[in-house]
Protein backbone atom coordinates (compact mmCIF):
# COMPACT_ATOMS: atom_id res chain seq x y z
CA UNK A 1 0.00 0.00 0.00
CA UNK A 2 1.02 3.63 -0.34
CA UNK A 3 1.79 5.38 2.93
CA UNK A 4 3.41 8.54 4.19
CA UNK A 5 6.71 7.69 5.89
CA UNK A 6 8.87 9.85 8.13
CA UNK A 7 12.49 10.27 6.99
CA UNK A 8 13.79 12.60 9.71
CA UNK A 9 13.01 16.15 10.84
CA UNK A 10 11.30 18.16 8.07
CA UNK A 11 11.49 15.21 5.65
CA UNK A 12 8.95 12.62 4.62
CA UNK A 13 7.88 10.76 1.52
CA UNK A 14 5.29 8.31 0.25
CA UNK A 15 6.49 4.73 0.11
CA UNK A 16 5.18 1.29 -0.65
CA UNK A 17 4.62 -0.46 2.71
CA UNK A 18 3.14 -3.77 3.75
CA UNK A 19 -0.59 -3.58 4.24
CA UNK A 20 -1.42 -3.79 7.96
CA UNK A 21 -2.78 -7.08 9.24
CA UNK A 22 -4.99 -8.20 12.10
CA UNK A 23 -2.74 -8.57 15.15
CA UNK A 24 -5.36 -8.91 17.87
CA UNK A 25 -8.83 -10.49 17.82
CA UNK A 26 -10.50 -7.09 18.26
CA UNK A 27 -8.57 -5.35 15.48
CA UNK A 28 -10.06 -4.06 12.25
CA UNK A 29 -8.29 -3.00 9.08
CA UNK A 30 -9.72 0.21 7.66
CA UNK A 31 -9.23 1.48 4.11
CA UNK A 32 -8.71 5.21 4.56
CA UNK A 33 -10.93 7.41 2.41
CA UNK A 34 -10.02 10.79 3.90
CA UNK A 35 -7.37 11.94 6.35
CA UNK A 36 -6.09 15.24 7.69
CA UNK A 37 -2.86 16.73 8.95
CA UNK A 38 -3.20 17.94 12.53
CA UNK A 39 -1.20 20.82 13.97
CA UNK A 40 0.23 18.31 16.43
CA UNK A 41 1.59 16.24 13.51
CA UNK A 42 3.93 19.17 12.96
CA UNK A 43 5.61 18.40 16.31
CA UNK A 44 6.55 15.00 14.89
CA UNK A 45 7.50 16.50 11.55
CA UNK A 46 9.84 18.96 13.25
CA UNK A 47 11.50 16.26 15.37
CA UNK A 48 10.11 17.44 18.72
CA UNK A 49 8.51 14.19 19.87
CA UNK A 50 10.87 11.63 21.40
CA UNK A 51 10.97 8.15 19.82
CA UNK A 52 9.68 9.14 16.41
CA UNK A 53 11.16 6.37 14.28
CA UNK A 54 12.21 6.47 10.67
CA UNK A 55 9.53 4.83 8.55
CA UNK A 56 6.69 5.84 10.88
CA UNK A 57 3.40 6.74 9.21
CA UNK A 58 1.70 9.73 10.82
CA UNK A 59 -2.00 10.52 10.88
CA UNK A 60 -4.54 10.39 13.70
CA UNK A 61 -7.40 12.12 11.90
CA UNK A 62 -8.99 9.76 9.38
CA UNK A 63 -12.18 8.09 8.23
CA UNK A 64 -12.58 5.04 6.03
CA UNK A 65 -14.24 1.76 5.19
CA UNK A 66 -13.84 -1.44 7.20
CA UNK A 67 -11.93 -3.95 5.06
CA UNK A 68 -11.34 -6.76 7.55
CA UNK A 69 -12.28 -7.52 11.16
CA UNK A 70 -10.73 -9.73 13.83
CA UNK A 71 -12.43 -12.79 15.28
CA UNK A 72 -13.88 -11.05 18.36
CA UNK A 73 -15.27 -7.95 16.64
CA UNK A 74 -19.03 -7.69 17.19
CA UNK A 75 -20.00 -4.12 16.44
CA UNK A 76 -18.56 -3.58 12.95
CA UNK A 77 -18.79 -5.48 9.69
CA UNK A 78 -16.80 -5.30 6.48
CA UNK A 79 -18.03 -2.40 4.38
CA UNK A 80 -19.03 -0.11 7.27
CA UNK A 81 -18.04 3.53 6.75
CA UNK A 82 -16.42 4.58 10.01
CA UNK A 83 -14.93 7.58 11.75
CA UNK A 84 -12.15 6.68 14.15
CA UNK A 85 -11.30 8.74 17.26
CA UNK A 86 -7.64 9.60 17.49
CA UNK A 87 -7.49 7.82 20.85
CA UNK A 88 -6.69 4.12 20.86
CA UNK A 89 -8.34 2.73 23.99
CA UNK A 90 -9.56 -0.51 25.48
CA UNK A 91 -12.77 0.65 27.15
CA UNK A 92 -12.16 -1.51 30.20
CA UNK A 93 -9.12 -0.36 32.22
CA UNK A 94 -9.26 1.71 35.41
CA UNK A 95 -9.09 4.94 33.41
CA UNK A 96 -11.43 4.03 30.53
CA UNK A 97 -13.96 2.85 33.12
CA UNK A 98 -14.02 6.44 34.37
CA UNK A 99 -14.46 7.93 30.92
CA UNK A 100 -10.83 8.96 30.57
CA UNK A 101 -10.53 7.37 27.13
CA UNK A 102 -7.47 9.40 26.21
CA UNK A 103 -5.63 8.03 29.24
CA UNK A 104 -6.07 4.30 28.56
CA UNK A 105 -3.56 2.08 30.36
CA UNK A 106 -3.84 -0.99 28.15
CA UNK A 107 -2.58 0.26 24.78
CA UNK A 108 0.72 2.05 25.21
CA UNK A 109 3.62 0.07 26.65
CA UNK A 110 6.09 2.87 25.87
CA UNK A 111 4.67 5.39 28.35
CA UNK A 112 2.18 5.66 31.18
CA UNK A 113 1.77 9.43 30.98
CA UNK A 114 -0.06 9.31 27.65
CA UNK A 115 -2.49 6.87 26.09
CA UNK A 116 -2.44 5.38 22.62
CA UNK A 117 -2.64 7.58 19.52
CA UNK A 118 -2.53 6.58 15.86
CA UNK A 119 0.60 7.60 14.01
CA UNK A 120 2.07 9.62 16.83
CA UNK A 121 5.49 8.07 17.50
CA UNK A 122 6.35 5.18 19.78
CA UNK A 123 5.88 7.46 22.78
CA UNK A 124 2.15 6.96 22.20
CA UNK A 125 2.37 3.24 21.52
CA UNK A 126 4.04 2.71 18.15
CA UNK A 127 0.98 2.48 15.94
CA UNK A 128 1.20 3.54 12.31
CA UNK A 129 -1.36 6.18 11.39
CA UNK A 130 -3.95 6.98 8.80
CA UNK A 131 -2.04 9.07 6.26
CA UNK A 132 -1.96 5.90 4.20
CA UNK A 133 -4.25 3.69 2.19
CA UNK A 134 -4.89 1.29 5.06
CA UNK A 135 -4.57 1.41 8.84
CA UNK A 136 -4.82 -1.06 11.70
CA UNK A 137 -7.56 -0.04 14.16
CA UNK A 138 -7.23 -1.77 17.55
CA UNK A 139 -10.31 -2.28 19.74
CA UNK A 140 -12.67 -1.96 16.82
CA UNK A 141 -15.65 -2.55 19.12
CA UNK A 142 -14.71 0.45 21.28
CA UNK A 143 -13.46 3.42 19.24
CA UNK A 144 -14.88 3.60 15.70
CA UNK A 145 -18.43 4.72 14.92
CA UNK A 146 -20.41 4.35 11.69
CA UNK A 147 -20.63 7.72 9.97
CA UNK A 148 -24.22 8.97 10.02
CA UNK A 149 -25.76 9.22 6.55
CA UNK A 150 -26.39 12.94 6.90
CA UNK A 151 -22.82 13.80 7.90
CA UNK A 152 -20.38 15.29 5.39
CA UNK A 153 -17.10 13.38 5.12
CA UNK A 154 -15.09 16.50 5.87
CA UNK A 155 -17.05 17.12 9.07
CA UNK A 156 -16.57 13.47 10.00
CA UNK A 157 -12.80 13.54 9.60
CA UNK A 158 -12.52 16.78 11.58
CA UNK A 159 -14.62 15.33 14.40
CA UNK A 160 -11.97 12.63 14.95
CA UNK A 161 -9.73 15.21 16.60
CA UNK A 162 -9.55 18.91 15.73
CA UNK A 163 -13.23 19.75 16.21
CA UNK A 164 -13.66 17.47 19.21
CA UNK A 165 -10.58 19.00 20.79
CA UNK A 166 -11.83 22.55 20.30
CA UNK A 167 -15.16 21.65 21.90
CA UNK A 168 -13.37 19.88 24.74
CA UNK A 169 -11.18 22.93 25.29
CA UNK A 170 -14.20 25.11 25.91
CA UNK A 171 -15.48 22.58 28.44
CA UNK A 172 -12.14 22.59 30.24
CA UNK A 173 -12.57 26.33 30.69
CA UNK A 174 -15.74 25.73 32.73
CA UNK A 175 -17.39 28.73 31.11
CA UNK A 176 -20.17 30.43 33.05
CA UNK A 177 -22.85 32.63 31.50
CA UNK A 178 -21.52 36.01 30.47
CA UNK A 179 -17.85 35.09 30.81
CA UNK A 180 -15.21 36.78 28.71
CA UNK A 181 -13.33 34.00 26.96
CA UNK A 182 -9.98 34.46 25.26
CA UNK A 183 -8.94 31.77 22.79
CA UNK A 184 -5.22 31.70 22.03
CA UNK A 185 -4.73 30.41 18.50
CA UNK A 186 -7.05 30.68 15.51
CA UNK A 187 -6.10 27.35 14.03
CA UNK A 188 -8.58 24.49 13.59
CA UNK A 189 -8.83 23.77 17.32
CA UNK A 190 -9.07 27.42 18.32
CA UNK A 191 -11.80 28.13 15.76
CA UNK A 192 -14.02 25.38 17.15
CA UNK A 193 -13.13 26.37 20.73
CA UNK A 194 -14.38 29.87 19.93
CA UNK A 195 -17.62 28.57 18.40
CA UNK A 196 -18.08 26.23 21.37
CA UNK A 197 -17.53 29.00 23.92
CA UNK A 198 -20.69 30.68 22.69
CA UNK A 199 -22.65 27.44 23.04
CA UNK A 200 -21.60 27.34 26.70
CA UNK A 201 -22.81 30.86 27.35
CA UNK A 202 -19.83 33.15 26.83
CA UNK A 203 -20.69 36.84 26.79
CA UNK A 204 -17.63 37.78 24.81
CA UNK A 205 -15.12 35.75 22.80
CA UNK A 206 -11.74 37.17 21.77
CA UNK A 207 -9.41 35.15 19.52
CA UNK A 208 -5.68 35.93 19.42
CA UNK A 209 -3.32 34.96 16.60
CA UNK A 210 -0.98 36.70 14.19
CA UNK A 211 -2.09 35.24 10.87
CA UNK A 212 -4.60 37.55 9.27
CA UNK A 213 -6.42 34.86 7.29
CA UNK A 214 -6.99 32.86 10.46
CA UNK A 215 -8.21 35.89 12.37
CA UNK A 216 -10.61 36.68 9.52
CA UNK A 217 -11.88 33.10 9.76
CA UNK A 218 -12.35 33.52 13.52
CA UNK A 219 -14.45 36.60 12.89
CA UNK A 220 -16.64 35.06 10.19
CA UNK A 221 -16.88 31.44 11.30
CA UNK A 222 -16.87 31.96 15.07
CA UNK A 223 -18.31 35.50 15.37
CA UNK A 224 -15.37 36.40 17.59
CA UNK A 225 -13.51 39.62 18.24
CA UNK A 226 -9.93 39.26 17.08
CA UNK A 227 -6.54 40.55 18.16
CA UNK A 228 -3.35 40.27 16.11
CA UNK A 229 -0.49 40.08 18.59
CA UNK A 230 1.96 41.34 15.98
CA UNK A 231 0.12 44.66 16.17
CA UNK A 232 0.62 45.04 19.91
CA UNK A 233 3.81 45.56 21.85
CA UNK A 234 2.58 43.23 24.59
CA UNK A 235 -0.55 41.16 23.97
CA UNK A 236 -1.07 40.49 27.67
CA UNK A 237 -1.29 44.21 28.42
CA UNK A 238 -3.70 44.64 25.51
CA UNK A 239 -5.90 41.84 26.85
CA UNK A 240 -5.88 43.48 30.28
CA UNK A 241 -6.98 46.75 28.69
CA UNK A 242 -9.66 44.93 26.69
CA UNK A 243 -11.06 43.45 29.90
CA UNK A 244 -10.96 46.64 31.96
CA UNK A 245 -7.80 45.41 33.69
CA UNK A 246 -9.52 42.34 35.16
CA UNK A 247 -8.20 39.77 32.70
CA UNK A 248 -10.26 37.15 30.91
CA UNK A 249 -12.53 34.92 32.98
CA UNK A 250 -11.41 31.97 30.89
CA UNK A 251 -8.47 31.43 28.55
CA UNK A 252 -8.36 28.48 26.19
CA UNK A 253 -4.85 27.61 25.05
CA UNK A 254 -5.25 26.13 21.57
CA UNK A 255 -1.69 26.54 20.32
CA UNK A 256 0.69 24.06 21.90
CA UNK A 257 4.40 23.47 21.72
CA UNK A 258 5.24 25.39 18.57
CA UNK A 259 3.83 28.71 19.59
CA UNK A 260 5.02 31.89 17.94
CA UNK A 261 5.03 35.18 19.76
CA UNK A 262 8.47 35.03 21.33
CA UNK A 263 11.47 34.64 19.06
CA UNK A 264 13.66 33.47 21.95
CA UNK A 265 11.20 30.89 23.25
CA UNK A 266 10.43 29.61 19.76
CA UNK A 267 14.06 29.24 18.73
CA UNK A 268 15.21 27.65 22.00
CA UNK A 269 12.19 25.38 22.17
CA UNK A 270 11.32 24.29 18.67
CA UNK A 271 14.50 24.87 16.67
CA UNK A 272 17.26 24.09 19.15
CA UNK A 273 15.17 21.68 21.28
CA UNK A 274 16.59 23.13 24.50
CA UNK A 275 13.14 22.74 26.04
CA UNK A 276 10.06 20.78 25.03
CA UNK A 277 8.86 23.37 22.55
CA UNK A 278 7.83 26.96 23.12
CA UNK A 279 5.66 27.62 26.19
CA UNK A 280 4.79 31.19 25.25
CA UNK A 281 1.09 30.56 24.62
CA UNK A 282 0.76 28.77 27.94
CA UNK A 283 2.48 31.65 29.70
CA UNK A 284 0.29 34.18 27.95
CA UNK A 285 -2.74 32.18 29.11
CA UNK A 286 -1.53 32.29 32.71
CA UNK A 287 -0.81 36.01 32.49
CA UNK A 288 -3.95 37.04 30.59
CA UNK A 289 -6.54 35.21 32.65
CA UNK A 290 -7.98 36.96 35.67
CA UNK A 291 -7.13 36.03 39.22
CA UNK A 292 -9.28 33.07 40.21
CA UNK A 293 -9.91 32.34 36.53
CA UNK A 294 -9.75 29.14 34.51
CA UNK A 295 -7.28 28.04 31.87
CA UNK A 296 -8.21 25.19 29.57
CA UNK A 297 -5.24 23.71 27.76
CA UNK A 298 -5.71 21.65 24.63
CA UNK A 299 -2.56 22.73 22.80
CA UNK A 300 -0.32 19.68 22.48
CA UNK A 301 2.91 19.39 24.46
CA UNK A 302 5.38 16.54 24.64
CA UNK A 303 7.07 14.97 27.66
CA UNK A 304 10.16 17.20 27.77
CA UNK A 305 9.92 20.04 30.35
CA UNK A 306 8.99 23.60 29.45
CA UNK A 307 9.72 26.92 31.16
CA UNK A 308 6.19 27.53 32.44
CA UNK A 309 5.39 30.40 34.80
CA UNK A 310 3.90 28.22 37.46
CA UNK A 311 4.42 30.79 40.22
CA UNK A 312 2.05 33.21 38.52
CA UNK A 313 -0.53 30.45 38.22
CA UNK A 314 -0.23 29.74 41.92
CA UNK A 315 -0.27 33.34 43.04
CA UNK A 316 -3.29 34.14 40.87
CA UNK A 317 -5.27 31.20 42.22
CA UNK A 318 -5.86 29.76 38.79
CA UNK A 319 -7.59 26.56 37.86
CA UNK A 320 -5.60 24.84 35.12
CA UNK A 321 -7.44 22.03 33.36
CA UNK A 322 -6.11 19.96 30.52
CA UNK A 323 -6.06 16.59 28.82
CA UNK A 324 -5.93 14.94 25.48
CA UNK A 325 -9.53 14.85 24.32
CA UNK A 326 -11.62 11.77 25.10
CA UNK A 327 -13.08 12.08 21.60
CA UNK A 328 -15.92 9.60 21.61
CA UNK A 329 -17.38 11.13 24.75
CA UNK A 330 -17.89 14.34 22.80
CA UNK A 331 -19.58 12.83 19.78
CA UNK A 332 -23.29 12.39 20.62
CA UNK A 333 -23.64 16.02 21.66
CA UNK A 334 -21.31 17.28 18.91
CA UNK A 335 -23.25 15.40 16.25
CA UNK A 336 -26.31 17.41 17.30
CA UNK A 337 -24.37 20.65 17.11
CA UNK A 338 -23.01 19.86 13.65
CA UNK A 339 -26.41 18.77 12.37
CA UNK A 340 -28.00 21.96 13.73
CA UNK A 341 -25.28 24.14 12.23
CA UNK A 342 -24.04 25.38 15.59
CA UNK A 343 -20.60 23.94 14.91
CA UNK A 344 -19.30 24.04 11.35
CA UNK A 345 -15.98 22.17 11.23
CA UNK A 346 -15.60 21.89 7.47
CA UNK A 347 -15.69 25.67 7.12
CA UNK A 348 -12.04 25.63 8.21
CA UNK A 349 -10.78 23.38 5.39
CA UNK A 350 -8.61 25.33 2.99
CA UNK A 351 -6.54 22.70 1.16
CA UNK A 352 -6.97 19.17 -0.17
CA UNK A 353 -3.86 17.23 -1.24
CA UNK A 354 -3.53 13.78 -2.79
CA UNK A 355 -1.51 11.41 -0.60
CA UNK A 356 1.27 11.37 -3.17
CA UNK A 357 1.83 15.11 -2.54
CA UNK A 358 2.02 14.82 1.23
CA UNK A 359 5.52 16.33 1.49
CA UNK A 360 4.13 19.45 -0.12
CA UNK A 361 1.09 19.37 2.16
CA UNK A 362 3.27 19.29 5.26
CA UNK A 363 5.44 22.14 4.07
CA UNK A 364 2.46 24.33 3.17
CA UNK A 365 0.82 23.65 6.54
CA UNK A 366 4.02 23.98 8.55
CA UNK A 367 5.12 27.24 6.93
CA UNK A 368 1.49 28.43 6.78
CA UNK A 369 1.70 29.22 3.09
CA UNK A 370 -1.21 30.14 0.85
CA UNK A 371 -3.56 30.91 3.74
CA UNK A 372 -3.53 27.28 4.84
CA UNK A 373 -5.67 26.62 7.91
CA UNK A 374 -6.55 22.94 7.55
CA UNK A 375 -5.21 20.54 4.90
CA UNK A 376 -6.93 17.26 4.10
CA UNK A 377 -5.23 14.23 2.55
CA UNK A 378 -6.97 12.07 -0.02
CA UNK A 379 -5.42 8.59 -0.35
CA UNK A 380 -5.14 7.23 -3.87
CA UNK A 381 -7.19 4.12 -3.07
CA UNK A 382 -10.19 6.19 -2.01
Amino acid sequence: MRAMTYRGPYKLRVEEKDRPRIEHPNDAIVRVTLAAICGSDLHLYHGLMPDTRIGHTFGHEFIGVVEEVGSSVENLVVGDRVMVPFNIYCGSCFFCARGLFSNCHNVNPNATAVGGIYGYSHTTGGYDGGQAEFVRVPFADVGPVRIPDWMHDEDAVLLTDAAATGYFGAQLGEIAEGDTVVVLGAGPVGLIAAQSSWLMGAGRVIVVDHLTERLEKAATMAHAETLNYDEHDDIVVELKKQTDYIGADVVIEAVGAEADGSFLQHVTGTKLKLQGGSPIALNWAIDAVRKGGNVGVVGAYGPIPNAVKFGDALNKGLTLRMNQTPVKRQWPRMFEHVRNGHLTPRDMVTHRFPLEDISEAYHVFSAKLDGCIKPLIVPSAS
Partner: protein
Amino acid sequence: MTDPAIPSAYVRDKRTPPPSREELRARIPGWGVDLDPADRPSYPKEQYPAQTGAHWDFPDRQSGAEGRERSVEHAFVTPVFGTAQPLHGLSGAIRRFAYERYSEARNGHWLILIAGDRVDAWGAHLRSFASLHPDNPVTETGVRTEVTHGGLTSRKGRSDARHQLLDPLLVAGPWVAGAGAAVLGTRRLVRALRG
Protein backbone atom coordinates in the same frame (compact mmCIF):
# COMPACT_ATOMS: atom_id res chain seq x y z
CA MET B 1 -20.60 56.79 43.04
CA THR B 2 -17.11 55.68 42.16
CA ASP B 3 -15.29 57.60 39.48
CA PRO B 4 -16.29 55.82 36.21
CA ALA B 5 -12.74 56.25 34.95
CA ILE B 6 -11.59 53.68 37.50
CA PRO B 7 -11.45 50.30 35.69
CA SER B 8 -13.62 47.36 36.74
CA ALA B 9 -10.71 45.47 38.28
CA TYR B 10 -10.57 48.01 41.12
CA VAL B 11 -14.27 47.96 42.02
CA ARG B 12 -16.83 45.28 42.88
CA ASP B 13 -18.43 44.45 39.53
CA LYS B 14 -17.71 44.67 35.82
CA ARG B 15 -18.78 48.09 34.64
CA THR B 16 -19.95 46.76 31.29
CA PRO B 17 -22.36 43.87 31.73
CA PRO B 18 -22.39 41.16 29.05
CA PRO B 19 -24.99 41.39 26.29
CA SER B 20 -28.44 40.00 27.11
CA ARG B 21 -29.41 36.41 26.29
CA GLU B 22 -31.80 37.67 23.61
CA GLU B 23 -29.10 39.75 21.97
CA LEU B 24 -26.61 36.88 21.99
CA ARG B 25 -29.14 34.34 20.70
CA ALA B 26 -30.01 36.68 17.84
CA ARG B 27 -26.37 37.13 16.89
CA ILE B 28 -24.75 33.74 17.58
CA PRO B 29 -26.12 30.44 16.17
CA GLY B 30 -26.74 28.11 19.09
CA TRP B 31 -25.73 30.54 21.82
CA GLY B 32 -26.23 28.96 25.23
CA VAL B 33 -27.38 25.51 24.10
CA ASP B 34 -24.73 24.00 26.38
CA LEU B 35 -25.17 26.59 29.12
CA ASP B 36 -26.08 23.90 31.63
CA PRO B 37 -22.89 22.01 32.56
CA ALA B 38 -24.95 18.81 32.49
CA ASP B 39 -25.15 19.23 28.70
CA ARG B 40 -21.37 19.20 28.41
CA PRO B 41 -20.01 15.75 27.58
CA SER B 42 -16.91 16.08 29.74
CA TYR B 43 -18.69 17.27 32.85
CA PRO B 44 -17.89 15.93 35.34
CA LYS B 45 -14.39 14.87 34.36
CA GLU B 46 -14.79 11.34 35.59
CA GLN B 47 -17.91 9.42 34.64
CA TYR B 48 -18.66 5.72 34.49
CA PRO B 49 -19.96 5.18 30.95
CA ALA B 50 -22.69 2.54 30.80
CA GLN B 51 -21.28 1.08 27.59
CA THR B 52 -17.88 1.47 26.02
CA GLY B 53 -18.20 -1.44 23.59
CA ALA B 54 -15.70 -3.50 25.58
CA HIS B 55 -16.86 -7.09 26.17
CA TRP B 56 -13.94 -8.16 28.33
CA ASP B 57 -12.66 -7.40 31.83
CA PHE B 58 -9.10 -7.50 30.58
CA PRO B 59 -8.33 -7.65 26.85
CA ASP B 60 -6.84 -10.69 25.14
CA ARG B 61 -3.10 -10.34 24.95
CA GLN B 62 -1.60 -9.60 21.55
CA SER B 63 1.22 -11.98 20.70
CA GLY B 64 4.80 -10.80 20.27
CA ALA B 65 5.23 -8.95 23.58
CA GLU B 66 8.41 -10.82 24.50
CA GLY B 67 11.37 -8.47 24.32
CA ARG B 68 9.31 -5.46 23.33
CA GLU B 69 10.52 -2.27 24.98
CA ARG B 70 8.27 -0.76 27.65
CA SER B 71 8.27 2.01 30.21
CA VAL B 72 9.55 0.78 33.56
CA GLU B 73 6.50 2.48 35.05
CA HIS B 74 4.36 -0.25 33.47
CA ALA B 75 3.96 -3.61 35.20
CA PHE B 76 4.24 -5.40 31.85
CA VAL B 77 3.92 -4.85 28.12
CA THR B 78 0.32 -3.73 27.65
CA PRO B 79 -2.04 -6.33 26.19
CA VAL B 80 -2.26 -4.36 22.94
CA PHE B 81 0.63 -2.44 21.43
CA GLY B 82 1.94 -1.01 18.19
CA THR B 83 4.32 -2.99 16.01
CA ALA B 84 5.06 -0.28 13.47
CA GLN B 85 8.85 0.05 13.64
CA PRO B 86 10.54 -2.43 16.00
CA LEU B 87 13.87 -1.47 17.56
CA HIS B 88 16.89 -2.23 15.40
CA GLY B 89 20.59 -1.46 15.14
CA LEU B 90 22.44 1.24 17.05
CA SER B 91 19.40 3.50 17.40
CA GLY B 92 17.49 0.53 18.79
CA ALA B 93 20.19 -0.11 21.38
CA ILE B 94 20.13 3.56 22.42
CA ARG B 95 16.36 3.57 22.73
CA ARG B 96 16.30 0.28 24.63
CA PHE B 97 18.80 1.70 27.11
CA ALA B 98 16.55 4.74 27.65
CA TYR B 99 13.54 2.50 28.30
CA GLU B 100 15.34 0.06 30.59
CA ARG B 101 17.44 2.54 32.56
CA TYR B 102 15.20 5.55 33.17
CA SER B 103 11.58 6.10 34.08
CA GLU B 104 9.44 8.69 32.31
CA ALA B 105 10.12 10.98 35.27
CA ARG B 106 13.78 11.36 34.31
CA ASN B 107 14.93 13.81 31.66
CA GLY B 108 17.59 11.31 30.63
CA HIS B 109 14.87 8.99 29.36
CA TRP B 110 13.55 11.52 26.88
CA LEU B 111 16.85 13.09 25.86
CA ILE B 112 18.36 9.69 25.11
CA LEU B 113 15.29 8.83 23.04
CA ILE B 114 15.80 12.05 21.06
CA ALA B 115 19.44 11.07 20.53
CA GLY B 116 18.23 7.68 19.29
CA ASP B 117 15.93 9.49 16.86
CA ARG B 118 18.83 11.41 15.33
CA VAL B 119 21.01 8.30 15.06
CA ASP B 120 18.07 6.52 13.41
CA ALA B 121 17.65 9.37 10.90
CA TRP B 122 21.30 9.50 9.94
CA GLY B 123 21.53 5.74 9.64
CA ALA B 124 18.47 5.72 7.40
CA HIS B 125 19.89 8.50 5.22
CA LEU B 126 23.16 6.63 4.78
CA ARG B 127 21.42 3.35 4.02
CA SER B 128 19.18 5.09 1.50
CA PHE B 129 22.23 6.06 -0.57
CA ALA B 130 22.99 2.40 -1.02
CA SER B 131 19.43 1.73 -2.19
CA LEU B 132 17.41 2.39 -5.34
CA HIS B 133 15.45 5.05 -3.45
CA PRO B 134 17.95 7.50 -1.94
CA ASP B 135 16.71 10.32 0.24
CA ASN B 136 16.05 13.48 -1.71
CA PRO B 137 16.04 16.58 0.51
CA VAL B 138 14.25 18.60 -2.18
CA THR B 139 11.24 16.36 -2.77
CA GLU B 140 11.04 15.14 0.83
CA THR B 141 10.84 18.63 2.30
CA GLY B 142 8.10 19.79 -0.10
CA VAL B 143 10.12 22.94 -0.59
CA ARG B 144 8.86 23.41 -4.14
CA THR B 145 5.65 24.78 -2.60
CA GLU B 146 7.68 27.88 -1.79
CA VAL B 147 7.18 28.59 -5.51
CA THR B 148 3.78 27.02 -6.13
CA HIS B 149 2.07 28.24 -2.95
CA GLY B 150 3.43 31.75 -2.58
CA GLY B 151 6.32 31.38 -0.16
CA LEU B 152 7.22 35.04 -0.21
CA THR B 153 3.78 36.60 -0.40
CA SER B 154 2.40 34.30 2.29
CA ARG B 155 5.03 35.44 4.78
CA LYS B 156 4.80 39.14 4.08
CA GLY B 157 4.61 41.06 7.36
CA ARG B 158 4.55 37.95 9.53
CA SER B 159 6.69 37.89 12.67
CA ASP B 160 7.36 34.16 12.37
CA ALA B 161 9.19 34.73 9.09
CA ARG B 162 12.24 35.59 11.20
CA HIS B 163 12.64 32.17 12.72
CA GLN B 164 11.53 30.38 9.55
CA LEU B 165 14.76 31.66 8.05
CA LEU B 166 16.46 29.13 10.33
CA ASP B 167 14.59 26.17 8.85
CA PRO B 168 16.76 25.79 5.73
CA LEU B 169 19.81 25.87 8.00
CA LEU B 170 18.35 23.16 10.24
CA VAL B 171 17.40 20.97 7.28
CA ALA B 172 20.29 21.57 4.89
CA GLY B 173 23.05 22.31 7.42
CA PRO B 174 23.79 18.71 8.40
CA TRP B 175 23.71 17.68 4.72
CA VAL B 176 26.19 20.41 3.76
CA ALA B 177 28.42 19.55 6.72
CA GLY B 178 28.20 15.86 5.84
CA ALA B 179 29.04 16.49 2.21
CA GLY B 180 31.98 18.71 3.26
CA ALA B 181 33.29 16.05 5.61
CA ALA B 182 32.98 13.44 2.86
CA VAL B 183 34.91 15.61 0.40
CA LEU B 184 37.66 16.34 2.92
CA GLY B 185 37.88 12.71 3.93
CA THR B 186 38.08 11.55 0.32
CA ARG B 187 40.82 14.08 -0.42
CA ARG B 188 42.84 12.91 2.56
CA LEU B 189 42.37 9.31 1.56
CA VAL B 190 43.45 9.99 -2.02
CA ARG B 191 46.51 11.91 -0.82
CA ALA B 192 47.42 9.15 1.61
CA LEU B 193 47.12 6.53 -1.10
CA ARG B 194 49.25 8.60 -3.47
CA GLY B 195 51.79 8.63 -0.88
